[in-house]
């Protein structure tokens, strides 16, 4: 069975633990999945910025080299499980637009972290609120057993990706 999974990301390596968790689950079930990494970001306010707004450049700007190599790391690990992985930005303002986005993208499952995501851009917003309130699709909340790194070391997160284990938090709101 083929599934499409939405993963809430803030372009930190830490958020890729969700991806790892999602793929591990699918791998054990023997499914192949398509993954969409989605980050919530408002459209620019000024008309000139809007004129030159391009999702692709913005995504390029937001993804760091650590994030890219971590993605490759996971891709190599789950070559047979992971079918296509894309990155997208969600700029809707209302719960309804998010629900519509889920339908349009044909999302079957959402993975979100139990921790507070970092805002990596001045216009970023927390997508988790929308995810929590939607009831269109199956939501899976993942809790990590390690605390978010306090050190400024860029690759501390990479270490976490290797050694930390995620746990699915049993959902209470359904």
């Amino acid at each position, binding site marked *: 069975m083929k599934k499409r999974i939405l993963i809430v990301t803030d372009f930190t390596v830490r958020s890729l633990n969700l991806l790892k968790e999602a793929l591990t689950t699918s791998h054990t079930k023997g499914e192949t999945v398509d993954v969409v990494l989605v980050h919530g970001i408002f459209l620019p306010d000024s008309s000139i910025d809007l004129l030159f707004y391009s999702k692709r450049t913005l995504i390029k700007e937001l993804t760091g080299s650590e994030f890219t*190599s971590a993605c490759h790391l*996971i891709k*190599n*690990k789950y070559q047979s499980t992971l079918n296509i992985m894309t990155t997208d930005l969600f700029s809707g303002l209302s719960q309804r637009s998010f629900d519509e986005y889920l339908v349009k993208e044909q999302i079957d499952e959402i993975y979100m972290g139990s921790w507070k995501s970092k805002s990596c851009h001045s216009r970023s917003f927390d997508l988790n609120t929308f995810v929590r309130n939607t009831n269109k699709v199956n939501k899976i909340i993942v809790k990590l057993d390690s605390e978010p790194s306090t050190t400024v070391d860029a690759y501390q997160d990479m*270490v976490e990706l*290797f050694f930390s284990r995620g746990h699915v938090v049993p959902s209470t709101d359904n």
Partner: protein
Amino acid sequence: MKTQNKIILVLIAVFVGYTILFSVFIYYNISNYAFADFYKRLEIRAITTAKFQLEEKEDAEVIRELRQEHLETLQDEKINLYPLSSDRSWKAIDGIEEYNSGFVEEVVTSGTATFNDQKTFYYGVVYRSSDQKDYLVLISAENYFITHHISYFRNLLFISLGVAFLIILLISFLFSRKIIEPINQIIHRVNEISTGNLHKRLPEQSDNDDAISKLTRTFNDMLNRLETSFESQKNFISNASHELNTPLTSIIGEADVALSKLREPAYYIETLMTILEDAEKLSKKTSALLLLAQTGFDGKKQKFEKLRVDQLIMDVKGTVEKINPKNQVQIDFSLLPENPSLLKIDAIEPLMHLAMSNLIINGCKYSNHEPVQVAFGVTDTQVIILVKDQGIGIPQNELQFIYDPYFRASNTKNHEGYGIGLPLARNIIRMHKGQLYVSSETGKGTVARVVIPIGSSL
């Protein structure tokens, strides 16, 4: 001769040679032109004069006016007309002796001729008038350009040659110094490096591919190899003295106690058993240590070969646990790629083995033999290996010194060691075009990350 002087000489020779050639060419052509041009001017004067003196009145008048109006009189211009007899003998002509006889002879035989002494230029032509009589027309004048301007022109060329020489000298001096300077710097820096400070490297200025950068890189590669081979010896001694002492002391102690007085046979058997056990441990340790130290001693050339990282880590785990059975290594396969061919790197196996076991042994040693976790994964371009321990860590302000040989962090007083393992590991990883990063938190543990490029897919 110094290279700088050589460069200066070659540059000067080339440039001055070129300038001289250039000047001679210009001088020769200008003076040639001046000669040809002046004879042309003499010719037109000779012809017009002959015309208006010998031809019909009306035509002659026009020509005379033309000549007077448009042809300026040359300096010392002198023109003579002599009628020629039909047998063309000219020697008897009155006043002809002031001209050079060879010149006049040539005029008579070939129709026209030119001649010059230092100052005065002569032109002669045999003119046939409309009534079929021949006249000898001889004109002479001083060439003002040749007498005055040409010497000025010559001086000008000489002065510019001199100035050019000075400029070339200056330029070639500056140029050669610019070329030589980086080489001198490298020589200076390499001179500073000796066995005492073999960990020093030449600063690599730029990434471009010029000869100087290549030279620097070559020197650094050589220093890496040198330092690695120096240190792998020291590393052996350091490891051996640390690891071999304990079982030896135990053996000696047991034997000593047993021999202190006469005992029951059962006691001897027990003692010998203990000694045998210790000796076996010792033998295992020695063979593992020798395995690490044999790099470069087996007479084989060290070659880069395809090496699978998972295989390497398993081997290292074996070695590390042999050296001290208390060492525990946990290998984390959670990010092992599905395609095993991605795990291949280009490496010198014994060296990589040495580097990885140093990192892991350090982890074991400074965490009092708590388990050390080793994980690895592959990105699109590189293999990442992580070694994580739960040891004493390294103080933040000392992290920058950990690669200096013989440096030991301030909190390692209770642990034996010589500060050789980590610099050696970094050297080996550098030789494989990889990088070693260490991050640590005091009391919590240390994580070493090794990043090595994936081997070319051949």
